[in-house]
């Protein structure tokens, strides 16, 4: 049985409190609290001691996807001090200017593979360049990004083969031609099933599809089916 949950950003954009409220009744075991825009970071960090996430067995944080060189070390410091040490922090590699700001995170930092708009982090070899600079970092594998880069799923296979030991979390959604996260289509489901067996059941799956409250359960079923296989890992 997959451990599934949603990104707060997919449910309520930057309003993580609203997302938590919406998701409460669904009783998913996982959640990712998202601060994709820099203005969302401080409110989220400040609220962490106050919000109740005790019903989740897995919580991660998504760091801002874009910031300036001047803001970088402050963001890293804020995350390092404000996020519980056992919560992975997902980051887009193209956002990083100074890798030394992030090296002390070790395995807590999860590098996400990128969509094809981005100049780095899309392929296994581009990810390797990042891991050379952050040798202890883990991997948040975005299966929708990987499919957008290579619909044959060969690149997904290569990434999962090469970085199996680093895998800490999955992002799943349909990634459209504008790189937006849509509900998982039938075509995406077929593609994701090709490599599903390479993703161990214990790895948390975070749904990034932008859905309204009435579609949450249906999308969770979609995600479960998309990652269904005879996984024996």
């Amino acid at each position, binding site marked *: 049985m997959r451990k599934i949950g949603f990104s707060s950003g997919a449910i309520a954009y930057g309003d993580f409190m609203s997302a938590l409220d919406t998701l409460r009744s669904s009783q998913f075991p996982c959640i990712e609290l998202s601060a994709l825009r820099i203005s969302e970071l401080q409110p989220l960090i400040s609220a962490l001691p106050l919000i109740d996430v005790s019903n989740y067995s897995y919580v991660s944080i998504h760091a801002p996807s874009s910031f300036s060189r001047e803001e970088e070390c402050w963001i890293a410091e804020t995350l390092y001090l404000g996020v519980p040490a056992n919560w992975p922090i997902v980051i887009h590699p193209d956002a990083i200017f100074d890798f030394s700001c992030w090296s002390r995170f070790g395995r807590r930092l999860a590098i996400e593979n990128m969509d*094809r*708009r981005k100049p780095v982090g899309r392929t296994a070899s581009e990810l390797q360049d990042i891991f050379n600079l952050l040798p202890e970092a883990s991997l948040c594998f975005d299966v929708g990004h990987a499919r957008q*880069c*290579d*619909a*044959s*799923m*060969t*690149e*997904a*296979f*290569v990434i999962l*083969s090469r970085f199996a030991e680093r895998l800490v979390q999955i992002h799943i959604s349909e990634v459209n*031609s504008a790189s937006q996260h849509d509900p998982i289509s039938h075509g995406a489901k077929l593609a994701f099933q*090709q*490599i599903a*067996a390479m993703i161990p059941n214990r790895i948390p799956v975070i749904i990034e599809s932008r859905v309204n409250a009435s579609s949450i359960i249906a999308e969770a079923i979609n995600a479960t089916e998309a990652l269904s296989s005879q996984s024996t890992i």
Partner: protein
Amino acid sequence: MTTALETIEKRTNSSWENLRTARRVSAEQRREVTTALEGYATADASIVVVGSMAREEFTVGSDIDWTLLLDGMSRPQDEQLARDIRRRLDELKKKQPGPEGVFGTFVSSHDLIHRIGGESDTNANTTRRILLLLESVAIGRGDALERVMRNILYRYLEEDRGLWFGSSQSKVPRFLFNDVARYWRTMAVDFAYKQRTRPAGGFLLRNTKLRMSRKLLFLAGMLTCFDCHTRFADGSERRSFYKGKPVEAVIERIGEILSKPPLEIVASALVEYDFMDLSIKKLFTAYDDFVGMFADENLSEKGKTKRKHLDDLPVEEIEGDLIAGEAREISHRFRDAISELFLTSQTELGKLTIEYGIF
């Protein structure tokens, strides 16, 4: 890094200077074109070159067979983009294919991926697809090319039931191999067709290319397919690898092989066969002579290069013509070396050639 071809060259005490020069010229030409077309390729559109530049055999007189490969949204500007590429190459005075031909225009990935076999797989579509697989390089960004190649390979491999579930111990992707073989035979048939429809000239140039570079292409395609079987230490390792239908793993491996030019693919397959060095040397020396012949810029008494001479020579004047004789002799050495290396039951490659190459 030393290539397999360089390893064999050294081991056999050979000097394939013409191949080295052609590699250097190909790289220079490619750099020039890449600079000129900077900004034309995108994540969804690759400028793909096939032919001698992709094979790293570019010589004087070679043309640039390019295609604008589209793998994304169709846009009204696509045709203009293709025209602009043509104009830019014209400015550089590069020889190009005609605008109505198989190359020199834009092509969507859709037909290449979905139309394999059947009525809708036209001669042009097959040509583009197979050349994309066997001899192509991207000018600038290659995202679309790499994606399309993998998707085409996915079709050939995922649908090959025999590869995954067949009772044979051999693991050669027949669907892919048969299309490569079909294309080789199609080229041979089209050669005869052109002899009828283009009686004015070009017979001997086409004939020499068919016997040499086209045959090399088939050989490289065949050996790429055979690698799916031969790369394993033993049957147990092979069975273990193919368990669970690892389509993507095979695509990755084949893609890695096809990223090399055809000569290097052949050299990589033969590098372990040092006990056949005489024949191996014969094969590559013949090819070196062929490339040297096409690169020779010296003019004859009639003011023609050897390549131009072959292109212009009427069929009825072939007999007794010295340059035609030279071309024929080179192609015979190439043919004989291939026969010695592959039509034998003494080696794994030979057994596979006999098993798959004929019936």
